[in-house]
């Protein structure tokens, strides 16, 4: 099958830096104002007030975080708002030494999936850990949200600065 592989031309990064090859650069302007809708709008409002809110489905009894106006398992509208705690356990995590654009970090970011107390089992959210030695992070560790001061909160997932270990 060797003859069925086209001899495609590979380039080095240098070929671009030294302009040995022609290229165009384009910065696309792709800007959005997304309607948050009912569920996520309420979630953001709660965050601004220093609280985490979920939604309960009366049929499967789950308390879901992030909240949603429909139950994706039962396919029906969800029924009521439920505040959940800002404590929980680390379900899984990583120690990430690169930023989203692959710039190297000296100290790792510690993204984790955190199962929140008061939500149904397995209902985790994505956030970051802080005030912790990266080597000490363990699956199953108990953590609590560290909130930004009320005046700095804007109604965003980043109103929680990070989660830190607790006893």
């Amino acid at each position, binding site marked *: *099958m*060797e003859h*069925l*592989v*086209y*001899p*495609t*031309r*590979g*380039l*080095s*990064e240098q*070929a*671009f830096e030294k302009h040995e*090859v022609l290229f165009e*650069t*384009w910065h*696309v302007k792709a800007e*959005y104002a*997304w309607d*948050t809708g009912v569920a*996520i709008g309420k*979630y*953001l409002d709660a965050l601004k007030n220093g609280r985490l809110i979920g939604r309960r489905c009366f049929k499967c009894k789950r308390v*879901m975080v*992030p909240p*949603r106006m429909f139950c*994706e398992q039962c396919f029906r509208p969800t029924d009521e708002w439920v505040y959940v705690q800002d404590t929980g356990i680390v*379900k*899984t*995590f*990583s*120690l*990430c*030494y*690169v*930023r*989203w*654009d*692959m710039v190297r970090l000296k100290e*790792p*970011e510690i*993204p*984790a*999936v955190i199962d929140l107390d008061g939500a149904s089992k*397995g*209902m*985790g*959210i*994505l*956030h*970051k850990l802080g005030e912790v030695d990266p080597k000490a992070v363990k*699956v199953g560790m108990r953590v609590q949200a560290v909130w930004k001061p009320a005046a700095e909160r804007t109604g*965003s*997932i*980043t109103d929680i600065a990070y989660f830190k270990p607790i006893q």
Partner: protein
Amino acid sequence: MGLRRVAVVGAGMTKFVRRAQETGRELAWEAVSKALESCEMTLDQIDCVVMGTAPDAFDGVHMKSEWLADGAGAWGKPYMRGYVGGGTGVFAPAQGWYHVASGLFDTCLVVCEEKMSPTQPHPQAAFNSIFDNITERPLGPNLLWIFAIEMNAYMNRYGLKKEDIALVSVKNKRNAADHPASLLGDPNITVQDVLNSEVLAWPVQRLDVSPVTDGAVAIVLAADSVARRVTPKPIWIEGIGWCLDTAYWTNRDLSYPTYVEEAARRAYAMAGIKEPRKEIHIAEPYDPFDYKELHHLEGLMLFDKGQAPEATALGITQRNGDLPVCPSGGLLGVGNPIAAAGLMKIAELFWQLRGEAGKRQVPGNPRRGVAQAWGDLMQVGTVVVMGK
């Protein structure tokens, strides 16, 4: 009331390279011209075209399947792009299957293209915007986060060590040394090399990961009657299946890919496979990260949960083992131009089952293989069973 039989009758591909000089449209044409050459068909014998390509953010063109259409051979033809993120490359032949099986078409050209190198500041940056726009993206997430998080969940569940997993990277990069399109084949790589490589997002290290790649692959599908005229060795698409789980990925158990199992169950049922471990002779599971091959082998029910690492250690998944896995060299070795990498696995099964894989040929006259891809937010499985 049987389903119409559909075969793969031709395949071709570009070399997989880190930065192609070719435009995406040219890459698509290169693969198409080789696929047509492989079965001595001309473009006017093609009834319709299916495109598979992952985020527009890579090639840097909105509605990029439209832009790729002429290179893909779609001028004046019915043309459609299916999209399930990283799972696209194995979904595309399934999409081609239903084009032909519907009775609307007798032949279908399936093309998968990916040019990741245009994305700046780094191709990985395209993955920031795969996360939920409101509840996750403000945290500055990157793709490695979820892989690392999932890998950690898998290791933690079964008490696995990095060494157990690095064996996959070593096997695949060694296998790829025999692939003429390969970007990262290395006949001499060792487990120690993997363990010594740069830590990106623990537990993920540099050599656990497949490389950023540009490339394209094309295959030709034909209905039974046409296939037998085109080639004495058609390879049949015996089963297809795909399954997409909830977007709320943090609400799921990440240690086992249930969506892959669901997709596999559908594909096996369609292929009449009752005992996959006995009836499948080659597997090309999706291996963008080394642990993923293990994860997927379990999802494909080819090994019990948590048992794929041991099978790997025992050499069962080597090319000359009981169940050769990724004899192509996989994404880890040949390269990972997302959608094209998935279709490369289909092309590999085509060549293996026809006995045309050259130095990579699996011994023992294999009769049936399975290819699988994965994508989205730890979320979608796509499975194709092929046989002769």
